[in-house]
């Protein structure tokens, strides 16, 4: 459970760093009246790029989480093998 929590927090941290800090970054952008390019960046980041990033993080998390669970099950005494054999095909 501790490892799962650590993993979850790590993933959440990634999310916060990636998206949570964006508003701050946007305030640092130059005034759109001066350089309209900045606006396009915002559109591209929020309108398009954010979603694939979310899916990638999610996918990464699932793979890691299942590895942790696999380890836990192994440590619990080879139950998984027993189960695979005893379970119905």
């Amino acid at each position, binding site marked *: 459970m501790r490892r799962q929590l650590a993993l979850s927090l790590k993933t959440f941290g990634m999310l916060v760093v990636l998206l949570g800090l964006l508003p701050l970054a946007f305030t640092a952008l130059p005034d759109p009246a001066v350089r309209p390019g900045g606006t396009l960046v*915002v559109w591209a980041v929020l*309108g398009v790029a954010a979603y694939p990033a*979310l899916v990638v993080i*999610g996918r990464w998390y699932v793979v890691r989480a299942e590895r942790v669970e696999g380890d836990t099950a192994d440590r619990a005494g080879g139950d998984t093998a027993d189960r695979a054999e005893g379970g119905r095909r």
Partner: protein
Amino acid sequence: MNQTYGIAAVSAAVVGTLVTGSAGLRISRTTSDFYVASRTVPPYLNAMAISGEYLSAASFLGIAGLVAAQGVEMLWFPVGYAAGYLVLLVFVAAPLRRSGAYTLPDFADARLESRAARRVAGVLVVGVGWLYLLPQLQGAGLTLGLVTGAPRWFGALLVAVVVTPAVAAGGMRGITFVQAFQYCLKVTALLVPAVFLLLAWHGDPRPAEALDEPPTFRRHTQVTVETTVRLRVETPLRAVATGAVDGRRHDGDRLSLDPGVHEVRAGTTLRFPAGTPVPEREPGDGRRAGASSWAAPLSGGRDDHPLYTTYGLIFATFLGTMGLPHVLVRFYTNPDGRAARHTTVIVLALVGGFYLLPPLYGLLGRIYAPDLLLTGTTDAAVLVLPERLVGGTLGDLLGALIAAGACAAFLSTASGLVLSVAGVLGQDLLPSPGVRHFRPATLLAVAVPVTVSVAAGELPVAHAVGLAFAVAASSFCPLLLLGIWWRGLTAPGAIAGLLTGGGSALTAVALTIAGPVTDGWPHTLLAWPAVWSVPLGFLTMILVSLATRDRIPPGTEAAMARLHLPEPPVPPNPPAGTRPPRSDHPMTIRRPGAGPRT
């Protein structure tokens, strides 16, 4: 918009929903292929159902409207709606499925072994559900008003009339199939017109820079104002008016508006020549609306504290998704925790894919339907665009398709919400629980938001959803996160946290809607409560739990193990309320057809 097509499309959406619902049961005569076919709901189907239920009128209409009206900062709404699922995936999805809880009150009960916590959670679920139903009903009113010309309240009533019997009679039998179908319908309804719109935009001889400030009318435009509005004019402009402007009657006369604020009475028609900059609409309370800073990511908008409001939105949507009653119910359909995780990732992809579209509509709506900014009905942007940009029969057909999608949006979310709210009402809150109470509970679940929606008038669709998210984030997010990841949570702590966090957010929402505070920091804090109410909820829950450490539920270790281990090492406990069967309650035996079927 062509009414015949529109009505046909909306009817088709309703009928399609009902047919899928009743055909959703797999019928199988050869028992052996039953298992191969539908042993359980596969993750992709379940994910489509969750997405279908989640993508509400707020997503379908509201986001485009907000983007059209207020610009790029509103893109945080869809990002937040999608990111909420990542947070759900990371902290909640698998453990929640393993808990076996079907609703949030169930979770509170399973984890804390407390009837009181269950009840409090139930009250909050009903509160959040009603709050979330409001914008769905408004979206229905808007769509149907545009399609059929019916008054606003008619849409809310129609939803009530369609959803209540369906839910009460258990008509949503194949609910997973229904919701998956709705998702497909919604994506199609936005994707297909979007292709045509982009082509039309591309073919436009002047694909004007959308980011122009301020937007201009691209052609001779006639606008009829339905409610009295105040317009702020920056540069002198000419128009032809029929009606009352600044207290003077006009009857088709030319009119020149000087810089300053002008009042246009309800029912007035204004005609602007092509190339006129769109006047800015002033909110009734005199604050500046956001159109002037449309392209800026933060600077400006509704309030004076853009960074704060952006974070308020992020807090609410990121953490609120996990507390929405109709979302959690669907997770139960997953066979186990692993499947719940896979489902959530697919949901993330499906929802994210969908959210690529509404901002596009917002952008185009700004260019091609600027009159909506003037009348303040930007939520209609999605619906009117095909007519404006493509035109002709094709435009009508595409418009009808979008209307069908919008219909699917509010029907699916509304039915999911009503089902959840009625379930909680019937099971936990109404006196003497039982199956028989489900129907009155359904009526109550629908009647309250319909009444409020008809009485309360207009509330921007996406904004109302934001408030529902804020309440969910500050009450259920702490409950779920601490319940799943912290052994020290006690029932008194959870109750105190739910009441403090959810209660304060609800109060803030009520004050915002009632509107006694309209300006400055107090208003900002109340309109975006999540930033302070979420930590408040967490803090209360933790502190009270620490203070009542001796009340940690005895089954905590077992519950935690069940939540987190892929193979629960703790065998199922015998049911808590084991008691001897009573021989004085014989089984119900009767002739077929005698008395009501239960």
